[in-house]
């Protein structure tokens, strides 16, 4: 039977014990956790409730990370339903982190590969719940079997996708308070001030090598076509050296360049793999 995280924002106080439970159970060291407590209205704007959501990997029925992975580094555990990443097969291209809407897979600088929640598969095998769900001090985060009929269902509280995340979230029931507006002065502080927007996961600064690679590849392709048509005299040396630079840029983007050969393994599903094989482009 598939399983899911159960989360009750009415019980969560944002204590982050779940994050530490994950770090400890999975031996991630003190500076890293696969779980993150996200706070809504973190600025505590008056009149708007403040609450939390504890998120890790939702081990989706249709895992975008697994489908997008060019290196076939992801697998689904048949017993637990966990979507597992094999670090030995990961090339560190970060493509899965772009595909996942929950921010679950994260690039780990030290190892050069992605890391993410395993559903504590090793504990499930022992008949235990994941460490985060076991150690939540308020009972806000729990773990339970899910009826198979519910697989792939939309989860209230999360954006509508076709992924079928294995998490269920209780509706927020914060009291409607009679003291709202007790300090009318407060409200004015927030009028006209935009709420902070989350920082984008992908920026030109973080992905400059990929942007340069894409630009050079397009340039080379155009030059090749123009040369073939006889419209442009093309120096083979210049072409080859530019192509080498482009290839170098594309490799430098990988956490594990030596495993670059794996990038073409998932032609069936990953657009990145299809891009690797020029024949597929046609």
């Amino acid at each position, binding site marked *: 039977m598939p399983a899911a995280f159960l989360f009750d924002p009415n019980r969560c106080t944002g204590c982050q014990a779940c994050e530490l*439970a994950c770090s*400890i159970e999975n031996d991630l060291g003190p500076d890293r956790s696969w779980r993150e407590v996200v706070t809504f209205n973190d*600025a*505590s704007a008056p009149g708007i*409730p403040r609450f939390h959501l504890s998120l890790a990997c939702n081990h989706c029925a249709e895992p975008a990370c697994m489908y997008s992975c060019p290196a076939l580094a992801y697998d689904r555990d048949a017993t637990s339903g966990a979507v597992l990443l094999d670090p030995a097969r990961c090339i560190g291209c970060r493509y899965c982190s772009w595909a996942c809407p929950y921010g679950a897979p994260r690039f780990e600088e030290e190892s050069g590969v992605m890391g993410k929640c395993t559903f504590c598969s090793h504990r499930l095998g022992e008949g235990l719940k994941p460490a985060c769900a076991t150690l939540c001090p308020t009972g806000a985060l729990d773990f339970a079997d899910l009826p198979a009929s519910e697989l792939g269902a939309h989860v209230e509280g999360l954006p509508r996708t076709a992924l079928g995340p294995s998490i269920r979230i209780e509706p927020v029931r914060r009291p409607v*308070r009679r003291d709202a507006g007790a300090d009318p002065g407060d409200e004015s502080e927030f009028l006209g001030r935009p709420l902070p927007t989350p920082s984008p996961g992908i920026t030109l600064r973080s992905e400059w090598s990929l942007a340069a690679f894409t630009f050079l590849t397009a340039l080379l392709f155009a030059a090749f076509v123009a040369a073939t048509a006889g419209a442009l005299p093309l120096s083979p040396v210049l072409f080859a050296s530019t192509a080498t630079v482009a290839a170098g840029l594309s490799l430098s983007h990988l956490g594990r360049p030596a495993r670059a050969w794996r990038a073409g393994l998932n032609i069936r599903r990953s657009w990145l793999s299809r891009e690797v094989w020029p024949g597929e482009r046609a």
Partner: protein
Amino acid sequence: MMVGSELEPVPGDSAPMSVLTTACPRNCYSTCGMRVHVENGTIRRIEPHPGNRATPEGVCLKGLSYVERVRSADRILTPLHRNPSGAFEALSWDSALDLIADQLTRIRQTHGPQSLLYYAGSGTKGLLNRAGLELWRLYGGCTTTYGDLCWPAGLEATRLTLGDNRHSVPWDIARARLILMWGKNAAETNIHQMPFIQEAREAGGRLVVIDPRRTESTESADLWLRPRPGSDGALALALAGEVIRLGGVDETFVREHVAGFDEFGALAGECSVEWASEIAEVPAQQIRDLAGWIASTRPMTITAGYGMQRYTNSGQTVRAILALLAITGNVGRPGAGWVYANLQSHVFDDVRDPVACYPPARPDGVVRISVSTARLGRDMLDQKDPPLRMAWVERGNPVTQNPDTNVVLEAFRSLDFRVVVDQFLTDTAREADLVLPAKTMFEQTDVIGAYWHPYVQLRQKVIDPPGEVKPETEIYRLLAPRLGIDSSLLDGKIPGPSAGQVDAFLEAKLGPFDGLSLERLRQGPALPPGHEEIAFAALDFPTPSGRIELVSDEAVERWSVDRIPRYTEPEESVRRVQGRAEHPLYLMTPNTKNRIHSQFGNLRMIRRVDPGPAVHVHPADARQRGIASGALVRVFNGRGEFRLPARLDSTLKPGCVSVTNGWWIQEGGTVNFCSPGRETDMGHGAAFHDTLVEVETA
């Protein structure tokens, strides 16, 4: 060496993992029961012990971070001696103990033994903590402190009113129909109380939070009152007056079990809602709404925090709040009562707090109990016949955690020699001539009580101390012969070094109590004999009148305050100086979920989740002063200053600034540079929050 008796092979692992019962001994409400998984001398997992019904779901993030704390790279593992250039160097135990013995012998000869200050904080709990004073008595005596930094004003107010500090089991609050969380942020400081409160709310009960700050706890509140700091007493009196006017008094209960209702009622009758609204800066309608709920809802539980009673008027404040329970008959009944301090597990104390922390009426001439914890620095400097020459500090970090840090530093620096026992180089340890490495809770067995739930628990040794770390009892044992103390004199007072000797020592302490033994405690938390699930259910109050006392002659005799809890402004109040205040902002120094005072903040696991030190300033106050978000600001008053980045925060009441307490000076400064060395109106507590400051861009 593998310690303990419970061996459970964990499936899937080749090496057997031992799973041992222990408990967290921090100065914290929750005092969680724990099950610790140990493999090859390393702590792998920490889980809640289901036998502790108050903390069954999980230990907090601090409890989990012990995994890092025990093996932190910053931990002190050998004695450290300060060399002439000011740096610390490792020293052998023999040299360290010889050095201490030389200094102790010298000051005993020149000034007498009372020129030694023994300062013990609340950093860890346990019966073996008493070993220190046992040694110093044999040494010839010492000087030590009275009072307490934490909670004595509220304890004394409770003792005067109800006769004793005990309350119902933590889960009883789930039966309340109305909960007043007064000056407490349980979501951060007593997280295990929140599920019970949530249970009460799900059953239709209402939660009211009274706090100047918007906190994680106010988010769940049906009503949130934000009084001006220190004005809670006025609010309580007006609520009582309004409840009486609304006919909310339980006449039968008051007639049979309350003394002084007429006198108190007359006072409350004079305290109008408008009067309190003006003083506390709370809308009158909110006070009326709350009074209406109190008058009409039974049962009601009031769960009060310790921050609210760290003012110079706060013993009286707590007496006024307690009166709300008394007049409505909300004592001794399920779902009702006063949740402040539950000392039912303190069965090993001959005299219970707060009286245990008062200076004795007749000093014994050996241990001089003459330094007020609240005035630590000033009183240390003022000691005469003999003056203080040396200090021994353990389980505490007085440089950052006692009020008036500048004077505390001056006092410590005026001594000839300082010994500090600690796990880390705290700001106090950095002032020491000699730092001795301290054990953690996992490295020696002890028995602990609690002050929220009623359990007696075993804090069991699960690993050996790392490096050259020795428990304090061993340090004393090694020091004794160097001071000319015959080791036979230590027997029965300080256990020997082996685990068996410690166990035998503790077993003897448990002996007199039915149902308590090491074997029983190894299984899990145990209830002390005579435990009351519903406190005061027999409606038998150990006060002079045998009733709940709303008037108290002892309050007059002992503390020179009004016999009824009349409202007075705290010492440092903007209303006392009406617009002429040089330092017009209240400095609030609350606790955070990420630390217990100055502990845990140095760990990387905690740093990863903590936003870092900052001064929270209301946007209106910041605008007036031209303070930008993130700018470095100077927080100051006549006593001192510290500098931290500003964080604009509209969750504060305007006129208040807030910095969580416990930051180290090394991290940007302790809030106590600005707090006064001043006692609360009763109980010899520290009036930390009676502090006005000004803030400006640095």
